[in-house]
């Protein structure tokens, strides 16, 4: 109760109002709908009791740092420099809200403008917004945005082709977000070897948008993607989902024709944090600006002609445009994007490259080690992988995971969870911090499991 400064001063204040009891304040609530019993909740706790309970409960969790871990699947066990949280939790940032009054919010506005710049540079597109909820809603809203822009001229009205390598939880989000706009989601096929199927690309001709991921959700990079913009043409949007860190070494989609780039920002700024709060990246070409979702900051001037920042293009947004808004997003993930901005600016260009190289090196080493185990095969042999790779096991992947869990290794993701047909496949994800001994543990564990189940 140490949060309410007027505790104990109720009478003094009620007197001013001419009221007797706190309940009098609620006189407008009809009796029939009043709650008459106390809430069946526990006793109030003090800070130290809450801290003790939180430490006990969360302390009972097994973390990704406690053991060799190869579970990534879109979230990253990263190392976030200490300065990031110390700066982002400064009260002026932490306890502010949407900068409706730019005159007293220049700091956050500038930070977000810088964030936009860094994201834009990262992905190679001119405009970025200040964050979406996550990579999946970013992908979903990229699709609705693209349809709004292209539907008039589209031959296949309302049709969007989505790569079959889109993980099902993301696809579910996409479907929820697009069904109301009468968008038809068709599947963009891939070849056996993981590359995009060019006949499927042909089928997409004249549709509103094509959504692919690079690397795909199995960590494979497909260089044939670099040619598809030319095939689908100007009137169909190319939307690409990325692994943000990979762009330290991998050509950004903006430079091979992507119109909208989306992705998960989490690797910059915050831990996997049980899945949230994280933040989605959203960047696009100029022609999408007025249809894009989310907040955006622009440079302008004040009445003294000094540089100033402000939210701009708000006429797209729900608080102005209401049901005709480009999106319903209001509260977004700015604070986490701020953490991302600080992390990115600490890294710098060469630091980003190094981070990507560390992941690349560990991908390489892990892939080599694991694929050398007899009985284990790469799902996409001969391809370049970043961060993740899928392997086919002799038995159910779920069994391998259980076995290795007992050995204290988090071995990856059972791909059977995503696609029943892949229940013998394991998705192994590394990060910049994967160590030789981590790889060894995984290698030994999987080898032992195969041996035991011979």
């Amino acid at each position, binding site marked *: 109760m140490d949060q309410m400064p007027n505790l104990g001063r109720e009478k003094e204040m009620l007197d001013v109002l001419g009221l007797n009891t706190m309940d009098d304040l609620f006189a407008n609530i009809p009796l029939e709908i009043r709650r008459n019993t106390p809430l069946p909740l526990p006793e109030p706790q003090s800070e130290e009791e809450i801290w003790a309970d939180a430490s006990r409960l*969360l302390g009972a969790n097994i973390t990704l740092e406690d053991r060799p871990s190869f579970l990534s699947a879109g979230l990253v066990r990263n190392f976030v420099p200490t300065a990031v949280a110390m700066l982002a939790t400064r009260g002026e940032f932490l306890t502010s809200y949407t900068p409706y009054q730019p005159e007293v919010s220049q700091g956050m506005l500038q930070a977000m403008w810088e964030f936009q710049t860094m994201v834009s540079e990262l992905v190679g597109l001119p405009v970025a917004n200040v964050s979406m909820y996550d990579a999946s809603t970013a992908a979903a809203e990229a699709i609705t945005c693209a349809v709004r822009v292209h539907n008039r001229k589209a031959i296949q009205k309302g049709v969007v082709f989505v790569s079959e390598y889109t993980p099902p939880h993301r696809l579910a989000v996409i479907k929820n977000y697009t069904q109301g706009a009468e968008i038809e989601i068709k599947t963009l096929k891939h070849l056996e070897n993981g590359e995009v199927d060019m006949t499927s690309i042909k089928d997409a001709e004249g549709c509103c948008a094509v959504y692919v991921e690079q690397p795909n959700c199995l960590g494979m990079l497909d260089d044939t993607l670099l040619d598809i913009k030319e095939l689908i043409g100007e009137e169909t949007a190319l939307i690409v989902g990325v692994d943000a860190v990979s762009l330290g070494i991998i050509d950004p989609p903006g430079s091979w024709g992507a119109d909208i780039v989306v992705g998960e920002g989490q690797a910059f700024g915050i831990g996997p944090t049980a899945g949230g709060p994280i933040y989605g990246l959203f960047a696009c070409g100029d022609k999408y600006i007025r249809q894009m979702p989310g907040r955006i900051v622009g440079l302008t001037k004040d009445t003294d002609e000094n540089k100033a920042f402000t939210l701009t293009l708000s006429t797209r947004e729900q608080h102005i445009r209401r049901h005709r808004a480009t999106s319903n997003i209001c509260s977004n993930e700015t604070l986490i994007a701020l953490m991302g901005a600080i992390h990115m600016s600490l890294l710098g260009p060469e630091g980003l490259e190094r981070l990507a190289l560390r992941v690349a090196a560990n991908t390489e080493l892990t892939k080599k080690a694991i694929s050398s185990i007899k009985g284990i095969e790469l799902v996409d042999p001969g391809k370049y992988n970043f961060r993740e790779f899928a392997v086919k096991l002799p038995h159910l992947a779920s069994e391998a995971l259980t076995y290795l869990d007992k050995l204290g290794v988090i071995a990856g993701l059972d791909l059977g969870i995503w696609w029943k047909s892949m229940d013998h496949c394991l998705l192994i994800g590394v990060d910049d911090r994967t160590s030789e001994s981590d790889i060894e543990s995984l290698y030994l564990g999987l080898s032992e499991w195969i041996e035991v189940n011979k």
Partner: protein
Amino acid sequence: MDRGEQMSDLFAFNGAKGAGWAQPKPSIEREILISSIPKKLRRKSLPKWPRASEPEIVRHYTWLSNRNFGIDNGFYPLGSCTMKHNPRVNEKIVQLPGMDKIHPLQPEHHVQGLLAIYFEMQEMLATCSGMDQVTLQPVAGAQGEFTAIRCIQEYHRQQGQGHRSKVIVPDSAHGTNPASASMCGYDIIEIPSGDDGRLDLEALKSAVGDDTAAMMITNPSTLGVFEHQIAEAAEIVHSAGGQMYYDGANFNAIIGKTDPGRMGFDAVHYNLHKTFSQPHGGGGPGSGPIGVKSHLSQFLPTPLAGRRNQVEADPKGVDDGYWYFWQDVGENSIGKVQQWNGNAGAVVRSWAFYRRYGKELEKMSEHAVLNSNYLRHRIMNPDPEIAKKIHVMPLNGAPADLVMHEFTLSLTPLKELHGVTGKDVAKRLLDYGVMAPTLYFPTIVPECLMIEPTETESKEVLDKFASDLHKILSEDPDLVTSAPHTTDVKRVDEVWAARNLILKHPGNESGQ
């Protein structure tokens, strides 16, 4: 020369290559790695990010933060946004490795502690709102609205009522309400409020029909008044076959006093970041769980946190006799709205927040409402001596005796007599070291200031705000219309921004 006159420019930092944040070397040599990337895939040139050392970055963001106003800097009466103090221990809790270093796909026996908190939160929210089942997956209020309307949509489809195509919202509704329903594919019917700012039952009656899918409404309304006819409204909508949706942004006004269940709602979202706690610096993150009555629960996004009694065979749990698990919602679930299990960090912070009040949570609502009424009274009843000096008093946005946790003022008289707008007064308030109230919302109140003090402000702060506002009302109109005068920048030209659209840094001379 003023301190800090020169702007700190992130992209002007251009130290040595690689002078940024030091990292270990990759475990394979750079050249080998680079050449292993298929040439076509390789990045040609690095992004133009700043090259800076830790001291420079710390100074830059410290400087930026010093040009930003938060609750920690002063009163933040932004109506509808519930800008209350965030207990600091919550920030420490979410930095525990058992929170920060957790992957949402880890097996259940790795995350019993997190699941226990999830379960407790689902239960607590259901209890306080009179709903049957809660999901914590939506990550903001707007997404909660969207999710709940999606559930209602699937419900109607299942009931063979797929033709219901309209969602009714009062004209005082928050913009996210119509936007969310519209994203689900619904047409919006906006109904006008009555003269007292309240819901107009007649208007509602004439709006409902066979095509009504749902009504979305918040109570107390965005004017801060309690819709005392809410049960009747629910009756009207229900008898037309529609569902009642409760926008929980104002839930903090009524906890323990009443609940949406009692009012007749079928679904509700909670803004954890408002009612409870999740610092949403600069605009987010939030968390927008929803609660539904049992007939809607089969449609909820999946999974939920489930609980059963612990048995012999279970691994070690969290010592409360239960085993927690992720419960699949089943085939009728709408699937996912966020990639994982929602904003877990916000859930844990809100859990820590609610634990502080426990069964006395209603005290929070009481103090929020007390502060709101007290401030409104102080504003509307200046001391006689002061009253003499005031040019013109604002009007109540809603002519109610009592308000709930927030209230509106209309500055129409001021505008008519002196040409001073609500925006001018808002900007002038910035000079007094407070954040301006919400401006021009709800739109049905002309020249509206919407004020929400929250329970974490002291009487002294409220007294000072009232007297500052009185001062402004007695100031030279020119001083007010040209405000702010003491902020980091003067009044910002928003039109210029929209016309010129400079949305990224142009890069600096040194070729960055």
